[in-house]
């Protein structure tokens, strides 16, 4: 019997250690959807109609609104945070492409309370690289390499009426800025690039989410705020094109912090 007992003892640890492994518990989570609406003075944007006046008194119309947001971050009440980047981290939004105005976040959002949402308006310097988008419409947002490369953060295109009542086109674009030697804008005189992206903290964006719940966060871009607070942006001063004018883009960047709100 001794040899059999020895063999049995030899295999005993396997029987003791061979416990059935319990599957890892699935965290309770829900889904989040962001919707984007573009408004002027509290009403939905009406394009191609010279019905708006900005804080500088420039009558204007809008033909296109398109921009990137990225690195959406959800801050939990316990201090932790979740960045939306499991699948996609950069989102393109375009007034003319309704599908882009709804962002279905694929990342599961753990159950709980969240006290704020932030996102980067534009694309961070680390991620904003030329040719990373090769398909339209994103590829149409390319920013020339000589001017910093990567992609526009925003294009708001339209027209404004100047002091001589002439309707002039404007390209209200925000992207990587340039610093020039001297007073001109020759690309050969560029000595530095400036990252003009910024973080937007959505006011009143606290929310809670339960297991398997889908929460919709309606976000509004208040277009009029691009032209005011803290700077009154005057087309008659800056002209229709600002992508090579860092001073103008800095004003736009600083105005942008209160452009986005949560729709009540």
């Amino acid at each position: 019997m001794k040899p059999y007992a020895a063999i049995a003892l030899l295999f005993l640890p396997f029987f003791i250690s061979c416990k059935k492994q319990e599957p890892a518990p699935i965290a309770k989570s829900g889904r989040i959807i962001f919707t984007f609406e573009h408004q002027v003075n509290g009403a939905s944007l009406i394009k191609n109609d010279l019905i708006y006046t900005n804080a500088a008194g420039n009558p204007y119309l809008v033909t296109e609104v398109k921009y990137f947001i990225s690195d959406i971050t959800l801050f939990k009440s316990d201090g932790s945070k979740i960045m939306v980047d499991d699948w996609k981290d950069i989102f393109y939004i375009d007034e003319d492409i309704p599908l882009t105005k709804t962002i279905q976040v694929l990342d599961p959002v753990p159950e709980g309370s969240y006290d704020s949402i932030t996102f980067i308006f534009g694309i961070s310097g680390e991620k904003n690289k030329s040719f990373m988008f090769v398909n339209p419409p994103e590829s149409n947002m390319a920013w020339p390499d000589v001017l910093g490369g990567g992609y526009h953060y925003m294009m708001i295109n339209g027209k404004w009426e100047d002091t001589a009542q002439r309707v002039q086109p404007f390209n209200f674009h925000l992207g990587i800025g340039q610093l020039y030697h001297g007073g001109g804008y020759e690309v050969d005189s560029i000595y530095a690039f400036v990252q003009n992206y910024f973080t937007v903290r959505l006011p009143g964006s606290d929310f809670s989410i339960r297991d398997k719940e889908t929460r919709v966060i309606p976000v509004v871009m208040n277009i009029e705020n691009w032209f005011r607070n803290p700077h009154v942006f005057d087309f008659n001063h800056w002209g229709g094109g600002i992508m090579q004018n860092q001073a103008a883009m800095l004003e736009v960047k600083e105005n942008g912090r209160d452009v986005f709100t949560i729709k009540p």
Partner: protein
Amino acid sequence: MEVRPVTSIRAVRIITSDFKCPDFAILLIFLLIGITGLFRPVIAQTPTDTLQLKEVEVFGKSINIFPVTILPARSFEYEAVRDIGDFLRLEPNVSGIRKGGVAIDPVVRGFRSGQLTVLLNEGVKIEGGCPNRMDPVASHVEGENIREIEIIKGPYVLKYGPVLGALINLETELPHPFSKPEIHGEVLYGFESNWNGQREHLALSGGNNKVFFNASGGFKGYGSYMAGNHERYNTSFQKMYGGAGLGFVINKTQQIILSYAYDQGQNTLYPALPMDERLDKTHVASLNYTIENSGRIWKSFALQGYFSHVHHVMDNLNRPAAKTMQAVTTVDAWNAGGKLTGNLKAGSHKFILGIDFEHIFKDGEKKMSMQMVMDGDTFTSVKFLNVWFDASYNNAGAFAEYRIPVKGLDLTAAIRLDYNQATSADTFRLVKDGISYFDALNSDFFNISFSLGMKKQLVSWLFFTAALGKGSRSPSLLERFIKLMPVQYDAYDYLGNPGLKPEKNYQADAAFTFVYPRAGSLSVSGFFSWVADYIIGKALPPSVIKPSTQGAPGVKQFTNAEMVYLTGFEVAYQSPPEKKWNLLLNVAATYGTQPKAVRYIVSGGQVIGEETIKNDPLPEIPPLEGSLQFSYKFFKKKLVPRVLISLASPQNRVSQAYGEQKTPGFMTAGVSVSYTPCRFASLVAGVNNLFNNAYYEHLNRRIIGTTEKLYEPGRVFYFTFAFKF
């Protein structure tokens, strides 16, 4: 069995037979074997005693242990065939992926690209330059220079290199000695309507019993074809090629042959790919050294060395997208290797032992340019992306094959050991959140392959063959290291995976062959294949990596699936070849399944989610297909009309994971007539797609930017004239 002379002068080709032959026929066969010069490395002959006879045909039925098909050149040399891949689609369970007018990529029983071993002369390999497979191996060789095509289905024949799904061996025209000084030549001209295509070919061969040579060259120019739906597709191309060979008989037992071939394609348009081929230059050189009758036990030795280089340039400059972004990709691919084989015979035991080696080096770059007009100024941005960067692949193998007849059974067994290693000097790294997607760039494997086969004559008219085997295939340089190119069926950009494991194919084949001297032969065969670690693509999040090709909805990385299985059958009937009338019937089908597949949900041109599909059919598996070919020999074979009917059933068994579309069934018909007024001249004229049907094969790819498939050519009138002396 009957022996008849034919009109062309070639090396004698013997078809072995399992029939009981009259004695005089056996004597004639052995006489021919003894005195003719078939200079394939493993045939035991004495080169200096070779006599070049007029070609004869020995009628009988060859029963191979493994599923082997031999296609002699005369079965296609005068047909309206632009490339070998196109011609191979006529064979049962052989299909082709069409992306343009030429360079159709063969698929055998559902196995494609690297899963097929395609080589020249039993060992010479070419590494294609195009990541999109614009230039599969068979496209680098012109049909006019092919002497014979051998298709071996399954992972059974291991002496030519690692093989997973099937092997296609293209035997080219190599020089051979002549018993007395001779010179021969051939001039060929072919024309096809619809394409307005022309091909010209010139060949010379000659020599004596010590020094011999051959040389050939040609040109092909084809326009775009119109399909039966009256759409004209941009499929034009031009090719030119040339080559030469020189042989020496060193002494009674030793011979050496040197050969070189050049092939160039240019301005080849591919509507189903995002780019077109601007230029593709191929150089292939080889050396074959043989020793025959080397001893009582060691019967022969053969040493083969080769070198090939492909320079490939492709761009999107003809595409609408080039208005905003231009892309030009340049790739250089080198392949060099060699093989040493020895034939051993001890009584009834036959052995083939050998070692081989293959080295591939690949380097390529994609240049992207984008013009932007901003505030009235035009700006240009340029980016360079390495497609491959000093990527190399080495495979060293040793193989052994054993054959023995045992009590009415013909048995064969083979084993192959391979050591495979690959590396890249790429500085690109992709590591995110602790997950390494593209990092360690060295990988090596030790692979074992084996096969067993048997053949049994059950009764005088019935043969049974069975085979079992395991083939192993190490991932290719594309699967390991490619960077962001749309290289697969779908439109995704693909990223290589240096951590891939080899695919393993465990396959079984069985066949019954019925042979009736007066009724013809019928073979019924089936196979089952279980492929472990099957290489597929898995989508990567855009937050990890984004595509670099316009139209790509995202990036997939090559990965190993758990397993897939394929099964299928082939039924073939051939009428007695000695009859004036000839009837060939084929029916074949393959079914492939992936037990667990992932379908990616695409919205707005981008991937937004995924779902699991159970028992998803594999993509690019052709439907049940059949063909009927009937011909009749008038005036002692001087005039032979022929009718060919091809049928394909609808393919409704399609992959959801790959978003594959169903394909309707179709039938096409073609007629031709060949006229050989004398032994110097031949004329073939015919019509393909006689009824101008609008149809596409299931494996034809979609036109870029659309969901529409690339249709096959509509009605084509053709003729080929050849003069030989």
